[in-house]
């Protein structure tokens, strides 16, 4: 796989989520055909590598941040952040949409509770639509 180094993607996280350069400078961003990977390693990616760091963005048709990368850097976000309580958090993680929590926001947001970054959400027409992948959705028996 070809990994094209494109550190300009730092600008996306700076502009959309207000994350400081100081946090972003340790990540190098590598683009493949449909994804952008965030990598803190020193050695350049091997062409044989199937994964480099953590997938940060999907870029096929639209640019969409991943829950896994927002769970790493989302705590530093100062813009486009939606705070919800623990009960709303459970619903959000289960894939439910929430009404009335992102009136003034539009587009992709970092969704968090007081203690944890839950992942990526999409604010559309005042509704928060969960973008958390199914693999991260909790089972009813979980604590």
């Amino acid at each position, binding site marked *: 796989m070809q990994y094209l180094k494109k550190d300009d993607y730092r600008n996306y996280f700076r502009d959309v989520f207000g994350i400081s350069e100081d946090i972003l400078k340790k990540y190098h961003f590598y683009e493949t055909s449909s994804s952008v990977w965030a990598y803190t390693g*020193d050695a350049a990616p091997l062409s044989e590598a199937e994964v480099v760091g953590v997938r940060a963005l999907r870029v096929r048709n639209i640019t969409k941040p991943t829950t896994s990368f927002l769970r790493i850097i989302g705590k530093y976000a100062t813009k486009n952040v939606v705070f919800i309580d623990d009960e709303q958090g459970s619903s959000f993680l289960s894939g439910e949409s929430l009404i009335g929590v992102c009136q003034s926001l539009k587009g992709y947001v970092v969704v968090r509770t007081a203690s944890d970054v839950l992942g990526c959400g999409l604010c559309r027409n005042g509704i928060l639509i969960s973008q958390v992948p199914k693999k991260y959705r909790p089972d009813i028996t979980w604590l």
Partner: protein
Amino acid sequence: MFEKYRHIIPDFESFLKAVETPQPYWFRVNTIKIGEKELVSRLSDKGFVLERFRDLNAYKIVSMPVKHPGATLEHSFGYYYVQDISSMVPALVLDPKPGELVLDMAAAPGSKTTLMAALMKNEGSIVANDTRASRLRALGSNVERLGVTNVMITKGDARTMDFKHLYDKILLDAPCSGEGVIRKNPKHGIPGDKEHRYFSQLQKSLIKNAWKHLDTGSKLVYSTCTFNPIENEDVVQYAVSKLGMEILQVEFPVPHVRGVSFWEGRDYSDISDYVMRIYPHLLNTGGMFIAVLEKR
């Protein structure tokens, strides 16, 4: 199944008793994402009773309010990794530092890779390799969940693959007959001599390729989760006598015994005092063999 090991495993009756009882769960806190104190406090609030082992980031779950230790939000957030303490030892003994270039030749499902990344504070680089797509998926999923960003994952036959660098440190947690994980997986078949010999050949090919990728003076940790000396001392002796590697003394504060000196007519006394064997009855864990070698 284990009768053939009666003369090499100390306190054999306790060993037999241990392997017939279920193995307790252990975990380590993923310090890339959360502090030990905070996670322990959160799990304790949820009803987990935990026991820390000495000053290590290794916690035994004494009791828990869920069926499986991974059935929590904290686990899904990547705040901890369920891993037997015996399985942590190879990575802790290798002791990778931030900034180093490390190769994990048989990495899936990623328990040791992600531990090494935490020790390296996500700095430096780890090349984590495995062969099968299904195992790579598990590795990728754990790397992602734990927020490990200094790893690149490759798929290849580690016996012959060109890993493109000389590495500061290599972990070869080799594929093996798995006798040491029988408590976790009681349905595990009984390995016969043919199987031990097959794995031994495979392990020697792997250690040879590891040796090719080490810089002079660099360190290799060789580990398996099995007991048979053919897969352990025999492979280490091969690395010393045929590849010219130097064996170093392993010291680590987890209960263990030294290696086997004689087995089926073979003499391993030149290396047996250097290696480490963790048996299930010593700390109520799985089994593990660990050796440290250096390239001259």
